[in-house]
């Protein structure tokens, strides 16, 4: 118990770091994921190919490797950003591949006739997707997107190894100060639970409000 009460600010900073990483990387992943899902069902072949490559590369690369690529690779091209921005980029892009596939599976649950009706009225591909298909797909993708974002919150721990302040990284300092490893980790776990259970709760609300009634 002392570990927590003596180190409020350390834990607090760590938790804040994790929340920041999670929120910004989630937003990036959602935006990119939906765009890529749109690409993957587009009538234009080159967009489809781009979406497929995006998903294949990012989904099949270990996240740690991606962190190395972004944090060590991008500065070589003269792109110098704070480490936590790099971490958000890596996490967001990685997770966008999973979001993309969840959204695409949702698109596939919308009956073909819905898109045909929209197109027969003269709506363009973008209008059909935005006004007819995605709003209906959205309802079915709430649960898998929730799971993916929970995974993102936990994956953010990797950023700690790349000098980004986040929750898991606090154990190093605590360890040096001589606190019990077990208690340090227990409170870290509680911190992650706070983040992941919040995401769960948020998606439960979304599902109650928007989900498909059965």
């Amino acid at each position, binding site marked *: 118990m002392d570990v927590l009460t003596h180190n409020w600010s350390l834990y607090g900073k760590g938790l804040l770091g994790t929340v920041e990483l999670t929120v910004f990387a989630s937003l990036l992943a959602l935006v990119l994921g939906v765009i890529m899902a749109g690409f993957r069902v587009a009538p234009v072949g080159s967009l489809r190919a781009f979406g497929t490559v995006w998903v294949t590369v990012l989904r099949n690369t270990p996240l740690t490797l991606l962190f190395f690529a972004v944090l060590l690779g991008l500065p070589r091209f003269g792109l110098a950003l704070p480490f936590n921005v790099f971490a958000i980029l890596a996490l967001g892009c990685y997770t966008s591949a999973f979001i993309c596939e969840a959204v695409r599976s949702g698109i596939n649950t919308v009956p073909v*006739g*819905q898109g*045909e*009706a929209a197109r*027969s*009225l*003269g*709506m*363009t591909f973008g209008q059909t997707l935005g006004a007819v298909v995605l709003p*209906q797909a959205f309802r079915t993708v709430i649960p898998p997107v929730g799971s993916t974002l929970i995974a993102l919150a936990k994956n953010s721990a990797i950023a700690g190894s790349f000098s980004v302040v986040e929750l898991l990284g606090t154990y190093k300092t605590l360890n040096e100060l001589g606190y019990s490893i077990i208690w340090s980790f227990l409170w870290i776990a509680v911190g992650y639970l706070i983040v992941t259970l919040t995401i769960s709760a948020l998606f439960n609300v979304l599902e109650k409000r928007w989900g498909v009634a059965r």
Partner: protein
Amino acid sequence: MAGDALIEMRRVNKYYGKLHVLQDIDLTVGRGEVVVVIGPSGSGKSTLCRTINRLEPIQSGTITLDGRPLPEEGRELARLRAEVGMVFQSFNLFAHKTVLANVALAPMKVRKTHKEAAEQRARELLERVGLAAHADKYPAQLSGGQQQRVAIARALAMEPKALLFDEPTSALDPEMINEVLEVMRQLAREGMTMVVVTHEMGFARSAANRVVFMADGCIVEDRTPEDFFTAPESDRAKDFLSKILKH
């Protein structure tokens, strides 16, 4: 009529893999004409209907609408589709939108009509198909016949030059068929150009200018309803009529 063709199909061929579903189709639909397409299932009549607004691409031949050939996929095609309404067998109303929003959506998105104007027009059209009272319901809350009438109103909202009906009453309970056919008869009387794929012989007799009989991907007969129903020329048509008219 020849000088005023709205839809013209010339030597149109379509394949699904090796299956030759449309074989050298020639068909002209004049402005204000009602053409009913009938035939046994698998004869290609729905496919024919869907090629006219390029929901089904064709492999060879030409289709022109109001003198302009059908463009390839893209904005140009979308513009052309806006001028040809389509009514589907399974209604395909937008499930997440109210009846009113279903009718008003395309004018707002495609024609950039203001919301108030589009909704005003939508209410008028719903009035016309007898569904003004249901404007705020969702499609799933309506009967099949009501949904199909909304679908017709939705197609009319774009003020199309022609309407395509792909078996509009085939998914309906018998007692709901008439309410849909009545709306279609009304449109025919008002001079709407219509291509109707249907099994409703009564509608074909009473509302059509021409009956096109298809079998195995070919147009076998293309005549007035009286001629076709009283004196079919081909054995295929005689056989078809004997099966459906005597039961």
